[in-house]
């Protein structure tokens, strides 16, 4: 048997992230610095790797388990960057905290490169398992959040594994490219069941309906910094996993069933998320419910694989979904990071407590406003508008009815985003809210501004090519 050479350059971002995790575990009081610099280096390495030619390693024949193309490395850099952001707004924590966060980030980076179902699911578990601990604050609420997250996550993992097993049984391989080639002859019902179970399980990470109910509860009860991570990096993980599976694996031969599953997930998420958000009176649950709706918008373009035959259209759809996910997690990260910076109690609180934030803490308030307006998809926060344009452009040409649902959802979104923005902007609240973590908030603010002015930065990375 021939010994395979491993492309260590392709793995470099992952090595750095894993190294950062190990260092953080043993570095004592320097754990935070080690973790942040290690993940920062990992992000830089990912960008450097993406600058060169596309790399791939762990091959079985022509199929690779780990690929470092532009989209993967862009996502990896984003995982690392978001983890650094979360670390920066976390304040003082014990050494294990940094270890767990770094492990989770390493899971995200693996996920970005994963091209077979086993690697993908293991990576997703690596991303999720540390969060079981992180979401659990001392006390009854924390325990509730932790247990809810644990149970929901395990249930969805089991679902996804079952789906993966079905697909393996159908195609005889776990490589996504192998699935693309091997599903043609399998029994359609079997493939459809596998696709539905796998996607339904993965949709848990994205907090898409029907496995969405954990999100508002856990986000509200978790520490805000961890909620930031859950709402950004963790959701990016779900989006990336679904896009990879759909585009590389299922679109070619299981397009019809996949498209129907994704469309159902998407429409359900848009409806449930928007309706849920309408009645919220507390900041974090509002963002969490609206995040469910955004998960629906992210999935929407993928639904067109049901009808398109050509690979080009599917690539456009996958790119649009990834683009939306990237803009959306950046905006969520901005909103949650700003919220973390101004809430000393470490919990979101009712919306009314944000009254007059604009006057008492202008920097976090402006980042928060920008993010909220962006989530509503309105100029001047063009990051959100571009995301919406990307999705609608794909949908308008092939699924006008879905475009109409996305549009209706966005209109409904205004009904809760605008009052939230108004609360922050107007009024004179207690001047107690002090902005902390100014550098981190300014950094995510600048990142949002950068993608607003130059969306091509994101679009270059999210343009998926086979």
């Amino acid at each position, binding site marked *: 048997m021939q010994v395979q050479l491993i492309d260590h350059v392709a793995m470099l971002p992952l090595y750095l992230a894993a190294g950062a995790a190990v260092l953080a575990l043993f570095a004592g009081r320097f754990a935070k610095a080690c973790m942040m610099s290690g993940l920062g280096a990992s992000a830089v390495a990912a960008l450097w790797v993406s600058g060169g030619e596309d790399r791939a390693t762990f091959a079985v024949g022509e199929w690779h388990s780990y690929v470092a193309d532009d989209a993967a490395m862009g996502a990896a850099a984003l995982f690392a960057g978001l983890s650094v952001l979360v670390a920066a707004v976390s304040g003082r924590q014990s050494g294990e905290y940094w270890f767990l966060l770094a492990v989770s980030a390493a899971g995200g980076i693996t996920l970005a490169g994963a091209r077979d179902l086993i690697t993908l699911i293991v990576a997703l578990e690596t991303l999720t398992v540390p969060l079981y601990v992180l979401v659990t604050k001392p006390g009854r609420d924390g325990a509730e959040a932790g247990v809810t997250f644990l149970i929901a996550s395990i249930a969805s993992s089991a679902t996804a594994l079952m789906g993966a097993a079905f697909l393996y049984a159908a195609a005889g391989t776990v490589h996504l490219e192998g699935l693309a080639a091997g599903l043609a002859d399998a029994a359609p019902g079997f493939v459809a069941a596998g696709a539905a179970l796998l996607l339904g399980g993965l949709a848990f990470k994205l907090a898409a309906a029907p496995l969405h109910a954990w999100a508002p509860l856990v986000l509200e009860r978790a520490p805000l910094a961890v909620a930031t991570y859950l709402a950004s990096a963790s959701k990016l993980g779900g989006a990336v996993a679904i896009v990879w599976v759909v585009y590389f694996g299922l679109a070619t031969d299981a397009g019809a069933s996949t498209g129907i599953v994704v469309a159902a997930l998407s429409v359900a998420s848009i409806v449930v998320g928007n309706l849920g958000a309408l009645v919220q009176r507390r900041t974090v649950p509002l963002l969490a419910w609206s995040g469910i709706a955004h998960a629906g918008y992210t999935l929407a373009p993928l639904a067109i694989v049901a009808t398109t035959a050509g690979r080009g259209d599917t690539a456009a759809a996958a790119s649009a979904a990834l683009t939306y996910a990237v803009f959306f997690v950046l905006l969520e990260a901005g909103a949650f990071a700003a919220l973390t910076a101004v809430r000393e109690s470490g919990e979101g609180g009712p919306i009314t407590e944000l009254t007059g934030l604009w006057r008492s803490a202008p920097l976090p308030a402006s980042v928060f406003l920008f993010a909220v307006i962006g989530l509503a998809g309105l100029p001047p926060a063009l990051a959100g508008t571009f995301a919406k*344009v990307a999705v609608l452009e794909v949908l308008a040409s092939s699924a006008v009815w879905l*475009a109409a649902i996305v549009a209706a959802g966005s209109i409904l979104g205004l009904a809760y985003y605008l009052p939230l923005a108004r609360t922050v902007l107007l009024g004179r609240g207690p001047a107690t809210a002090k902005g902390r973590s100014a550098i981190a908030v300014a950094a995510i603010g600048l990142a949002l501004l950068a993608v607003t002015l130059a969306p091509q930065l994101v679009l270059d990375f999210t343009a998926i090519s086979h």
Partner: protein
Amino acid sequence: MLVLAVAVPFFGAVLVWAWRDRAFAHWIGAGAAALALAAVAVLPVGRGGGDWVSVGGSLSGGWWHEVEFAWAPSLYLDFSLAVDGVSWPLALLTALLGLLCCLHNALGAERRTAAALQVPPPGAATGGRPRRRLRAVNVRGRAAGDASEVPGIPSPVLTSLLLAVQFASTLVFFADDLILFFIAFESVLLPMWAIIRRYGDPAARRRAAAKFALFTVGGSLIMATGLFVAVADTGTADLGAIIVAGGVDPGISLLVFTLLAIGFAVKAPLWPLHSWLPDAHTAAPTAGSVLLAGVLLKLGTYGLIRVAGGIAPHGAADAAPVLAVLAVLGILVAGLVCLSLPELKRLIAYSSVGHMGFVVLAFATGTEAGIRAALFGNLAHGLITPLLFFLAGALKARAHTGLLGSLGGLRLAAPVFAGLLGFAAFASLGLPGLAGFWGEAFTVYAAAERGGAWLALAAAAAFGAFLAAAYLLRMLRRVSHGPLVPATSGIGDTSTAELVVWSPLVAGTLLLGLMPGPLLDLFGEGLL
């Protein structure tokens, strides 16, 4: 120059906002608006010949000027601006109204600051003071509501928001890229929402602002879907190139046109999608109403004529009867509703629905005369209705009421004011020799020219014009004539500042009314 015309209001808005605590902030705003007006005004210099040639998917010649920067090519988004005979007059109107609103705000603010120093005697009879008293009351109401305003301090933030609206609208008129057009169209929403929400009439602003936002976003997203279908079909987002190439594939033309038309009909507004308009107008502050009537409604009609009609001509032809019937219904409904409305501002707002009905009807005829009439009526409405709103705002500020039933005798109390109101009302009802006449007369002509069922539509529209005359004269009779009533007794006549702000609109109305020719020629050069 093109970039300057767009960028100046934007940076003006930013600067005014940044220096909102300084006394000179208003004048920066006015200065920026004036600069923008100058930049737009010189655009015809060195313009191209008007030969529309399409070379390899992109357009050469035709536009007076164009600039283009790549922004996000994978979204088909380019920052490309262009101007021609159709968009230039509207941009000029936008810049003019922007300047007037900024001036209005600045002068009003001046008077208010002066008044904070010297407490005025009650019932003082000079021009601006009663207005300031009312504003002060409003400000206090606001302070009680959300504690955001310090009483007596004028708000340059309003000027900043006005400039932001002006920036976005100018961008809409100049946008040569469909995606940019959509983004600019959406950009108008937030500043306008903030104007209504924050500076509007405390009683109604909350609902009105929410309604405005939801209607507008709904419309613009439907429109966006139509735009994206068109982009996907043609493979380019270059507006000019699509129009010259003859629009989208006839098979989907009707779909594209329907989506676009619904979107623009919300903005225009076309009956039955108009219901946000009276609320928004009634609740908005004077400057906000002026921009709403003079600029925002024009976005809808411009979009309908240029974008919807341009990229889906087949669909436009197919949908024309529906559009025409809705337009005529709008004219009649607006006329009948106006006959019984008790409130001045609401009446003017509803009359806009009727005027826009004429514009849409003229567009629906699809003939050359019709489209020119549509563009002309559009522009005329943009001069006359803002004037009416300025007057109504000033009157409401003086008399503290806008109810027709409690007004009267303005002719005796303030003759110049009453004269101006009469002038504006006559212009609005389409008196020959004033701007309102040409658009409406040629609309009826263009509709009648098509014969058949269109003749009935033309007759109904003519009857609508008669209704307009009836309700405007009723308004004049209630407001200007009759004996003095408590509300109007002792109110001041127009001040110099007000005359300065209003006179360009009066002059424009006269000019367009007496010499419609040059403007019609401009439209003829444009790309449709």
